[in-house]
């Protein structure tokens, strides 16, 4: 009797096994939770993940306009496979013939110029080569007018340039590495992949500069923000609230306005330099259109992002700890360094992470006060995206930036531990 009752499943009030009914209840709860977050999830997917994902994909897609290269140049792609650029000879007639057919077809849709722009990223000169060839090629009789090699060479000697054909061959797939190569300051030559000459490298330098200056700015905000946050946490609430408004006030002012204000203060004929000269110094200080200007302006602009997390963490540290340390014989410095400071590391971690990641992506301030040697990589990404129109390279640089940030975040997590980071 008692054995049988142990073996039988425990039933809930409606007669179902308890386990089953518990699972059911949990599933219901999960679905309800999912429905509650569904609007946000859809919003994030549609407005954030999908566009960024599709943008990042452009860094490897080999397209001209919206079409892939192999779809635009099927005949060239098929026939150029067997040609070896290292042979030192121009491609066989078959390839030229394919080019004539593909160019004539492309000219119908006016996509020959898009092809020119795509290959112009590889070697300058393609753009005008393709544009000028479109119309004449469309008038050729593709059945009987061969051989086409001579006809192309009559149009322009560059059709006999092996490097050009090597570029086409290297970028004839659906996907390409050339944008990432460019983002690493490397290029593909007929002898293989190599880095560009040191004085031709841009993105390596810009990446290092961006990370270096961002790190420096983070330290500056910490050095300036820590005492302020401590003061705020230490003062009676009424006074500290007033001072907090002073911290927040610039935070509410437009970024552009703050940057422009720094321009007025820092320029050669500006307020600070005029005061400097009034003090009796002959030389005006170069404070703007260089890295100094970027560091000063960005430190100021990002300061609240350091002070606020620090303040919120320091607010939770009871002042009695410091008093206890001192009553036990610690000097002022020991009490601070051994007792107070370790408790604020969570705030430092949060503030540093926030400021650093914001700084790495900064764009307007370096553009306006950075001059030639204070620009960031984001300025080049913007240029490639909006001015030059090379979305593939912009996407490759963006992807690289994202990877660098994720790697740094990972290292940071290992060293400091993201669980220890406290925003309040």
């Amino acid at each position, binding site marked *: 009797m008692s054995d049988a009752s142990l073996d039988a499943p425990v039933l809930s009030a409606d007669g179902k096994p308890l386990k089953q009914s518990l699972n059911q209840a949990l599933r219901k709860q999960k679905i309800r939770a999912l429905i509650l977050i569904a609007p946000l999830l859809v919003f994030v997917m549609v407005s954030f993940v999908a566009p960024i994902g599709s943008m990042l994909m452009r860094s490897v897609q080999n397209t001209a306009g919206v079409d892939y290269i192999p779809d635009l140049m099927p005949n060239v792609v098929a026939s150029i496979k067997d040609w070896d650029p290292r042979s030192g000879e121009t491609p066989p007639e078959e390839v030229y013939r394919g080019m004539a057919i593909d160019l004539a077809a492309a000219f119908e849709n006016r996509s020959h110029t*898009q092809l020119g722009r795509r290959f112009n990223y590889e070697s300058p000169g393609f753009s*005008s080569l393709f544009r000028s060839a479109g119309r004449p090629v469309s008038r050729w009789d593709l059945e009987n007018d061969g051989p086409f090699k001579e006809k192309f060479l009559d149009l322009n000697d560059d059709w006999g340039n092996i490097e050009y054909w090597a570029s086409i061959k290297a970028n004839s797939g659906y996907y390409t590495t050339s944008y990432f190569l460019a983002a690493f300051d490397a290029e593909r030559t007929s002898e293989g992949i190599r880095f560009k000459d040191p004085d031709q490298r841009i993105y390596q330098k810009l990446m290092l500069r961006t990370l270096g200056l961002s790190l420096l700015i983070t330290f500056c905000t910490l050095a300036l923000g820590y005492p302020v946050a401590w003061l705020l946490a230490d003062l009676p609430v009424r006074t500290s609230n007033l001072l907090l408004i002073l911290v927040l006030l610039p935070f509410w002012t437009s970024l552009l306005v703050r940057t422009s204000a720094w321009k007025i203060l820092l320029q050669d004929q500006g307020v600070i330099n005029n005061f400097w000269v009034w003090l009796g110094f002959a030389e005006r200080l170069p404070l703007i259109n260089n890295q100094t200007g970027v560091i000063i302006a960005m430190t100021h602009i990002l300061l609240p992002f350091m002070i606020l997390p620090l303040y919120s963490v320091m607010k939770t540290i009871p002042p009695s700890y410091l008093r206890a340390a001192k009553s036990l014989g610690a000097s002022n410095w020991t009490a601070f360094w051994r007792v107070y400071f370790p408790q604020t590391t969570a705030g430092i971690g949060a503030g540093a992470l926030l400021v650093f990641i914001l700084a790495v992506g900064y764009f307007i301030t370096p553009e306006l006060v950075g001059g030639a040697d204070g620009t960031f990589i984001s300025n080049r990404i913007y240029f490639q*995206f909006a001015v030059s129109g090379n979305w593939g390279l912009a996407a490759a640089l963006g992807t690289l930036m994202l990877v660098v940030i994720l790697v740094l975040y990972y290292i940071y997590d290992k060293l400091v531990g993201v669980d220890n980071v406290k925003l309040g």
Partner: protein
Amino acid sequence: MKLKTTLLATGATMVAAAAFAQDNMADSMTVVSWGGAYQNSQVKAYIEPYVANNPGLNVITDESSAEAVTKLRAMSEAGNITWDLVDVTAADGLRLCDEGLAMEINPDEMLAAAPDGTPASEDFGDTLIGDCFIPQIVFSTTFGYRTDLVSEAPTSVCDVFDTEKFPGKRSLEKRPIGNMEWALICDGVAIEDVYDTLETPEGVAQALAKLETIKDDTIWWSAGAETPQLLADGEVVMGSTYNGRLFSAIVEQDQPIGMLWDWQMFDLDGWIIPAGLPEDRLARVMDFVEFATDTQRLADQAAYISYGPARASSAPLVGQHAELGVDMKPHMPTDPANSVNTFVFNFEWWASYRDDLDAQFQAWLLQ
């Protein structure tokens, strides 16, 4: 009698045709331009008179021309073109045409002939760049200098490179276009050889070496408004920018700035019609473009801003500034006194070499 009937019949057909055309035109049109004084001049000279002739038309203005290429590309990929007419520089016009984002035009069919009957293609002449670009104005990138901060007025563009005679900072645009040409001209390269020289690595090195001599004295600008501001603040003694910006600093704001027209770089600005507009919107925009680019309208625009009309036949009609009453002719880049030495961008050449030279230029800036 017969003649009269024919005339009447033709007249009736024409009226009917006009009414028919009117019916098929969209009653709203989005015109994109650069904002500021320039777009204002277009509103005053083209849009307001056109709307007066076509009551009920709703013209929406947008100020996105700086990102026109990117935005049109995105619109085209999304399959939803919301712009009807876009004001772009010739280089962007060529690029949009290349990418199939702008509609190809036939100037003689679409644009009005000059009052003396000269066909549009001849009247616009060399300003017709590529197959899609409808020219409006000639502007130039040239130098302004602070009259009170130089010992004598600079007369040659090479004075920009002479830091002994003209000490102080100068401002140049943060891109190779223009700067490379000036550097080579001042390094002794003949004007007709400039682009051939720039095509070689040695030529690029030569131009950059010339720019190197003033690199430490240069502030690099990226927005056209920066140089007038830097000049007004006394931050630079001379700097390059668009001539219309300098005109407004000198004439409208009364700043102590002088013009240095030597080897000004001519550039063009004009309309493109996005490819793939629905029929009614296309009909409307074609009607507007024909009106807005006729000889009188182009001359009218010059009453608001100091940019030269792209039509030869408009030049004699240029009069006085609409508000200040200043004679506009001496402020035009195309005025004979100003255009002794001029330079026209080689748009096709830059379309090919722009990406490469820009990378080299930026690498040089970073050194």
